[in-house]
Structure formats: C-alpha cells, structure tokens
C-alpha cells in the first residue's frame, strides 16, 4: 500500500495538472451521485403518475357525473402519495440548483400538471391555477419563494396535454349520449387557445406542443358541428 501511495505521489509530481484537476474530478463524481439519487426518486414519481393516469382513463368508459366524481375522488386520494415523493426529490437537490437537474423531472412534472388540470376540470369545469397545482403536489408556487416549484413551461405543457385529452373526452361523451359536454369543452378549449395565443412563444418544445392545440380544437369543433346539425344540442345549453 505504502509503495503504491508513493508511486502515486511520484506520478502526480510528474504531472502537476492532474492534481489541478482533482477537484474537478470530485465535482464530477459528486454530480453523478446526485443524478443517480434524483433518478431513483423520479422513478417513483413516474410510477405514481402512471397509476393516476390509469385510474383517470375510466372517465372515457363512463362519463356519467357520478362515475366521474368517484374517479376524481379516487385519483385525488392517490395524489397524496405524490406529495411525499416530491418532498423526497426536493431533499436531493442542492439549494438554488433546480435548473441544473431539472431535465430529470421535467417530463413527470408535465404529467402531473396535466393530471391535476384534468381532475380540476372534471370536478368543476374550469382551469387549474398554479397555486392549486402546487398545493396538490406539495411544492412551491413560484421560483422566487426559493424552493421546488413547477416550471412555467412545464405547467403550460401540462395544459396542452389536457386539451389533447379533452378532445378525446368530447368524442367519447357523445358516444355515451352526453350531448351537453362537448359544448362546454369546446368553449373551454377555445378559451385556452385564446390564452395561449397571448403568449409569445419561442421556437422550443412548448411551441411545438402549442402547434398541436389547433387540431384538438378543430376536432372538438367538429363534434359540436355534428351534434348541432342533427339537432342534438340539449335545450339547457341553448338557453345559456
């Protein structure tokens, strides 16, 4: 051992740069370690997201108000686990370095933004707010409060995923003879579209997702059109 150490010392003497880079070496292994830990925690989050999604898919099968209510209650129940999982993740991230590692949980955060928005929409026909989502996941609302938050880009991406899901939901509502819902969804997504058009998006992934929104809107409008020309529009909707 001693001889080895001596040899190493000699080698380092001959190569002064290696010792200069030693701290960088430490930095690298440390970085790798943190990433590994984050990966394990996000895996749990991804699993929960998949489970909640699977439960929520039931609304396509039975879009009756009672069934939807039950499904939402069940998914909300399941989301309570997520809070502790996010708390685990927060522990792993060094202070103020959210964006250094954010690629690891970007996808899953988008998923949760979408799931939260879907639940809130099913429950009360309105758009989720950022504070609501933060409350649901047990994270901070804004970056400025210095903690783990859902990035605005990810939140908006989640809303676009919601629009996509709603276009499917509109079709399935009609199949189960719920003719009122597509009208509501159409108004909601149209407003969402108007909201998104207020944003000045850069040419990034969010923008690409946004470009798909018009197709969702078109699909929903077609459903509304089909219902209208067949006189299937419920009387209640006409009055409003």
């Amino acid at each position, binding site marked *: 051992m001693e001889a080895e150490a001596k040899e190493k010392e000699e080698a380092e003497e001959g190569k002064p*740069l290696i010792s200069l880079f030693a701290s960088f070496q430490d930095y690298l292994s440390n970085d790798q370690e943190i990433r590994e830990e984050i990966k394990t925690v996000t895996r749990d989050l991804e699993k929960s997201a998949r489970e909640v999604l699977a439960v929520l898919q039931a609304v396509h099968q039975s879009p009756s108000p009672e069934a939807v209510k039950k499904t939402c209650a069940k998914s909300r129940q399941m989301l309570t686990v997520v809070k502790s999982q996010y708390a685990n993740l927060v522990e792993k991230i060094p202070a103020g370095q*959210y964006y250094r590692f954010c690629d690891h949980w970007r996808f899953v955060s988008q998923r949760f933004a979408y799931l939260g928005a879907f639940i809130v929409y099913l429950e009360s026909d309105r758009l989720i707010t950022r504070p609501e989502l933060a409350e649901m996941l047990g994270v901070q609302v804004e970056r400025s409060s210095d903690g783990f938050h859902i990035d605005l880009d990810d939140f908006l991406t989640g809303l676009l995923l919601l629009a996509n899901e709603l276009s499917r939901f509109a079709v399935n509502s009609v199949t189960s003879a719920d003719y009122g819902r597509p009208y509501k969804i159409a108004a909601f997504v149209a*407003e969402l579209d108007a909201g998104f058009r*207020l944003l000045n998006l850069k040419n990034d992934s969010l923008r690409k997702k946004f470009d798909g929104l018009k197709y969702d809107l078109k699909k929903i409008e077609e459903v509304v059109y089909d219902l209208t020309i067949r006189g299937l529009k419920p009387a209640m909707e006409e009055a409003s």
Partner: protein
Amino acid sequence: MAAVGKQRRGEKRSRKQASESNFPKTQIDENSPIIKSFRKHQQELDSRHDKHERLVKCSRDVTIASKRIIFLLQRAGGADDQEPILKEADEKFLEVKELLKTIASELGGEDSYLFSRAYSPGLQEYIEALSLSHFLKNKTLISYEQVKATFEFSKEGGKDLELNPFDYILGVADLTGELMRLCINSAANGDKETPFEVCRFLRDIHDAFLSFGNVSRDVSSKLRVLKASMNKVEVACYTLKVRGSEIPQFALAEALNTDIISTQDRDN
C-alpha cells in the same frame, strides 16, 4: 423592373391583410380567469426570454472581445519582445471584465443554470483567452480558483459570477487548439524552445483529460479535438528534431506545414 415587382408584391400583401381584417375576430373576454392567468404567464415568459436575449448578446460580446485578445496573443508567439503585447492584452481584459460584470448583475437573484446556455459560450471563450495569456506569462495552466477569482465583483459593488466547473474544463480544452497554433507559429519563426514547451504542456493536459472518463458528450468531443491538436504538435516537434538542423530557416515553415497537412488528411 425590380422596383415595380416589389411594389406589386407590397400591394398584394396589403390587400391580403385587408381581407383578413374583415374576418370576424373572436372576442377575447379580458375578465375570464383563464385569460387573466395567461396574461400573467405572458409577462413571466416575456421577461425570461428578454433576459435570455440580453445574456446572449452579452455573451456574444464577450466572445468577440476574447477572440480578439487571442489573436493579439498569438502575435506574441515567437515575438522578440512579448511584454508590450501582454500588457495590451491585460488592458483588453479589463473591457471584457465590464461585460462579465453585466452578465453577473443580470443573473443576480436568478438560478444561473436556467440561463447557462445563454452565456456559457462567452465564458468559455473568455477562459480560453485568460488561460492563454496565463500560459504565455507563467508557462503553467491557470487553475479553477484563479479563474474564479476574476469573477468576483462583490468588492466593487457588483455581484459574483458563479463559475461552472464544466465551463472551465471546456475553456481549457479550447485552449489546446490555440496552443497548437502557437506552437506552429513559433516554430515557423525559428523559436527552438517554445514548440517543445507547448508539446509537453499539451501532453499534460491530455493526460489529465484522460482521467475524467466518459462524463459528458461535450468533454468527449473536445478530447477528440485535443488529441488531434496534440498529434499535430508532436509531429511538428518531431520534424524540428529530425530535420531542424538540416533545413535552412526559410524552408522550415513550409516543411512544418506540409507535415501538418498530411496529418490532417490522415485524420479526416
């Protein structure tokens, strides 16, 4: 003719716009909660994009200024008197420092990693220039701490700029390309010492880089370039050693260049 065509195109466009404006516009209800929240999102996104743009611009300026310093320093290679050139470079570094200060103040209170893509290229170029000047002065590699020390503006009332170790490493990797040029230039100028010095130094950096292993794609690709640079320098040193004594001074540059071209061909 061209002018007429242009005008016509212009007319067409204006007519098209007019017809578009005849469409009934969907009324945006400013009071709906969705629109209200999106107005807020709009502000947040815009301010973030603006900051990003400002940082990119600053970074571009740092890059340009640093490149100029590097060109200046290259003139020092093989020059009889390096002092005035190094001094001039030091003066130019002060200008770059002002720009870095601006970047630091833009980043104040932000998560610097969010904008790292905007300003990293500039920082790397700056580190390249700084390490080159350090090498010319001391014949050693500038350390991470030394670079970091130049980013401290808190004494002057500014904010410190965080130095990402990756930026340092990538900047050093870029330095090797400049060293290769320095080696060839000085050899062509008949300098018998600098090429070998540079060669030794490059090997040291290369060895240190090898110890990192496969950490990031950036580092690995730089390592490839580094190897190529080292190869060229080694071949140049070889040529100097073998033929240096035989070749007349004026033909030496040409001999070196042909060697380098042949290694380049092989690399490609």
